């Protein structure tokens, strides 16, 4: 019901841009949008897990940068691509577990814990590289983020689609997914109903860390550079996409399909406004309004129900 509402918003947005610009509704541009959105979408999926469980993760951007950087450094050190990528993704999972530990076991509020971790991880990236981007990565690695099947379908988009489907099934159908929503809805109830709250929390932050790492790898590959500044402000985009997609920051709700629509609304908006030629500063303003309007519509609908 609510998803229909935001899906309609996305469609309206697309219609407007197709009419205003000549090049919006071309196969190439659609693929561009999908490619441009894929990284944000993957991070947002992880964020949906965390927000669904009543948490928040402000460290996604720096985790992405950290894992992209470690992957790049490993490749530079001569490790094969597949091994470096796997290691980077595992490190993302470990960073997520660390987040979860600080939050669930040490009992620090998620906002503060991940804010702190964000700074720690970002700082570590700078220390690791002395602030200098790592370049000269193997050519084959560039394919992940930049390559296209048959010259038109980007690998990154395929990765995003596969991740979205898998993560949607896990969130909806698995025991783990149910537990996340239980913890997000009412932690006390979940605890007294036998849900292992600490495991669940650590699990959801780990999921978010792994997905951030994958996003970081794709980003690094697409830029053919591991930049220490990469992934800056990803958390805001991911939170926005999740919330536009119908999740409540109070926890206990959210869906991957909604989040994907949310991510695409922002992607389409950026792309369309670029095509129209709207100045970057005005784009920021437009996107801000869209976030507020989208959530306001939800608030109004919630009130009307009551």
């Amino acid at each position, binding site marked *: 019901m609510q998803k229909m509402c935001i899906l309609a918003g996305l469609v309206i947005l697309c219609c407007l841009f197709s*009419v*205003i610009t000549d090049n919006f509704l071309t196969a190439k541009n659609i693929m561009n949008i999908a490619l441009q959105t894929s990284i944000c979408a993957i991070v947002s999926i992880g964020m949906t897990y965390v927000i669904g469980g009543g948490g928040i993760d402000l460290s996604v951007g720096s985790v992405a940068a950290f894992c992209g950087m470690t992957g790049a450094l490993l490749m530079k050190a001569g490790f094969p691509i597949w091994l470096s990528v796997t290691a980077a993704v595992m490190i993302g999972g470990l960073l997520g577990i660390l987040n979860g530990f600080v939050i669930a076991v040490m009992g620090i509020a998620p906002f503060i814990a991940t804010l702190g971790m964000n700074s720690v991880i970002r700082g570590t990236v700078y220390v690791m590289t002395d602030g200098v981007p790592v370049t000269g990565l193997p050519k084959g690695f560039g394919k992940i983020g930049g390559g296209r099947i048959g010259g038109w379908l980007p690998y990154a988009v395929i990765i995003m689609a596969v991740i979205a489907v898998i993560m949607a099934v896990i969130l909806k159908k698995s025991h783990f997914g149910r537990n996340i929503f239980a913890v997000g809805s009412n932690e006390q109830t979940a605890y007294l109903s036998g849900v292992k709250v600490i495991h669940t929390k650590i699990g959801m932050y780990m999921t978010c860390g792994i997905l951030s790492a994958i996003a970081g790898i794709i980003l690094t590959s697409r830029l*053919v550079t591991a930049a*220490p500044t990469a992934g800056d402000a990803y958390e805001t985009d991911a939170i926005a996409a999740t919330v536009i997609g119908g999740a409540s920051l109070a926890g206990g709700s959210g869906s991957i399909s909604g989040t994907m629509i949310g991510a695409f609304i922002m992607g389409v908006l950026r792309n369309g406004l670029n095509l*129209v030629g*709207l100045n970057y500063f005005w784009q920021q303003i437009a996107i801000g*309004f869209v976030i507020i309007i989208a959530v306001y519509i939800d608030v109004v609908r919630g009130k009307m129900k009551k």
Partner: protein
Amino acid sequence: MKKRLRMVLAGIMAASILGGCSGGGKEDPLTASSSAQAEPQASAAGSAETQAGGGNKEIGVIPKSTLYDYWKMVRLGCEDAAEKEGYTIRYQGTATDTDIEGQIKIVEDFVTAGVDAIVISPVNPDSLAPILEEAAKSIPVIIMDGSLQSDCQKTTVSTDNVAAAAMGAQAMVKQIGEAGGLVAVVSEVPGSVQGEQRERGFTEEIKKQDNFELLEIFYSEGDRTKAANITQDILIEHPDIKGIFATNEGASVGVSLTIRDEQRSDICVIGYDSSIDLVQAIYDDVLTGTVAQDPHNVGYLSVEAALRVLKGEEVDANTAVPAVYVDAENVHDEDVIKVLDPLGTLGLE
């Protein structure tokens, strides 16, 4: 008829997306952010109109950042060059000069929008290579004020950062004199190619001198406040410091702010780039001098090169734009003023 429909829809869109932000429709959004110096240009709706014709006669310009006066002057140079040949400029950039991802998206969208050529200042020489190589297959790519690890670009238009920084170093040595002493460099973002070149140009020149000693390089992220704080720290740690070199506008302003506060005009401060704040600092004898690039010329020469390529002419692989050293002695010269203030909005004399 179709055009009219487009105009109407564009209006609706601007209204609906900006949520009633009426400025979006009427005022030119391209210039709304700057001090409204350039004549009104294609508005959001207007640019859609020009596209409808097919041959856009449009050059896409992507600065490294949209936050600094420097790039506004570059833009003006671009516009002046384009106007001569009846072209228009589509100007779009990211706010920060580290946003690789954002710049790639803009390139993609420019190609989609069908510009005739791209003039870009890449935030990173490696990362932008694949996408620009892709773009170069169909349209000419000109690099301005920066570099690209590729050979797809028709020419690279830039100030020779190393030579310009060395010029700053020479000026400092001359000012401080034989006695020498301790000098520091306040740079921008670690890893920025431009910053590195300027650091290198300066330090290599200083190292040639016997009596001069260099502190390690400080990074201010090109932020005035951070640069000012760093300078305070330097002054506390090394009160006997003789000279400070700042590598971009933000850093230069930051350094001069602290020098002004601490009334340490005995320190030789050489800045880089120019802005009204820096010119004022020279007037007030807070800043010894600055290595001014000629941003208007950078923009002008870049677009001119693009236009020549479009006409089928050959261009050199590198186009050098000379830098100008400005200090209290020449700051009032007419030629210098033209470099410092091509917009003519600063009211310099």
